[in-house]
């Protein structure tokens, strides 16, 4: 049996950055960022770990919404934020190292946005 809590916590857009800052202040390290496509929306997961516990903040946004970058809080997030933007078309605002769709040399724009 695995040790450590593994939770997913929904968070509203206005509470998102304060929640990330709170994670940082409490000593949680950034583990991963992930986008999942929903009809007309994106489900974004931001996972943090402390000791053996894993905590995922879940943010659901519309396709046209701009999501604030967390690179000012967790600088190492830039690669995964660029990946979300490039593969899914998530609009991430103010990434510290923004590749502007040039991270991956891929033939199609936002190939993960549509199913199949």
């Amino acid at each position: 049996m695995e040790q450590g809590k593994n939770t997913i916590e929904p968070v509203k857009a206005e509470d998102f950055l304060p929640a990330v800052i709170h994670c940082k202040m409490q000593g949680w390290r950034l583990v991963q960022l992930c986008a999942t496509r929903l009809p007309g929306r994106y489900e974004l997961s931001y996972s943090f770990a402390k000791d053996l516990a894993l905590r995922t903040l879940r943010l659901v946004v519309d396709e046209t919404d701009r999501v604030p970058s967390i690179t000012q809080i967790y600088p190492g997030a830039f690669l995964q934020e660029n990946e979300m933007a490039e593969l899914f078309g998530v609009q991430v605002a103010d990434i510290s190292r923004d590749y502007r769709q040039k991270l991956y040399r891929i033939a199609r724009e936002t190939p993960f946005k549509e199913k199949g």
Partner: protein
Amino acid sequence: MAKQSIVPFGPQHPVLPEPVHLDLVLEDEVVVKAVPSIGFVHRGLEKLVETKDFKEYVYIAERVCGICSFGHGMGYCQSVEHILGVEVPRRADYLRTIWMEMSRIHSHLLWLGLLADAMGFESLFMQSWRLREKILDMFDATTGGRIIFSVNCIGGVLKDMDNGMLRRLVETLDSIERDLRPLADTFLQDYTVGTRLIGLGVLKGEDATLAGAVGPMLRASGVGYDARQLGYAAYNDLDFAPVTAQEGDSYARCQVRIQEIYQSIRLIRQAADKIPNGPISVPVKGNPNGEYFQRIEQPRGEAVYYVKGSGGKFIDRFRLRTPTTSNIPPMLDMLKGCQLADVPLLILTIDPCISCTER
């Protein structure tokens, strides 16, 4: 301010087996900034999950990388098994642990060879890879494959090891341990190796955590986190503690990986002693409906497997955050202030896997 110049590094470079490009901003011969470009070999394997049966996808997950292939298959299977509520037979857990630790030995020996080659120490490179052959032969004997094994399945594993095979595996490990000692002494005590590694690319523990470093890179900076402590597979039955070093430099990263080879040998011996009899898989009914984040300790560090299904035979989303994805940002921090001539070696000490990163 001194005059700055930009030197392109890669994507093809003698020390890099896979393509990665860096624009190195230099003042004289000192790196002041590094801008990475990846994405030369992106394959879209995560998206294939939408068109492959979730049981068949195990074989795709394995093909994310040729070195961590077993772990990728296992991480994916464990995520799906958790969603389905499948309890894997204990013998399968032990077999997975044994193959996982063999993968770690294989990966670290491969890295030691690449490190020696990057320093121009060709005899050390050849001796490291000669030793690695023994592990590849044991993979061949136990799974039928040397790189891609296809032994994981949802609900357990597809192949078993009988007592004779386990005994042969332990004997092979005894000989690897014996042959590794003079190699380890050379890596850790040779004057030339020391001059190239000691004090190069120092990453303090706090910086490593903040930048998201994982695996040997994190532990070489004194942070004792190892995802195997989570107790998945058979790790909760085995006695081990994370290998750490305090210096945070390239030498410490080499030291941690060498000690982890010895640790993996001890773990396999323990597992071979304790492995229970019984079935190696259970039948799986239904389709995954739910989501789960699974963490495992790959040779290069913590990997995260996210699976989300909605009751169909095709999974909605599979996400794999590989160790190299997490280790690139701290690598960029380490490059600042180093000499141009040390850049190839420093990049190598994070043990980058571009195949994993561009899955």
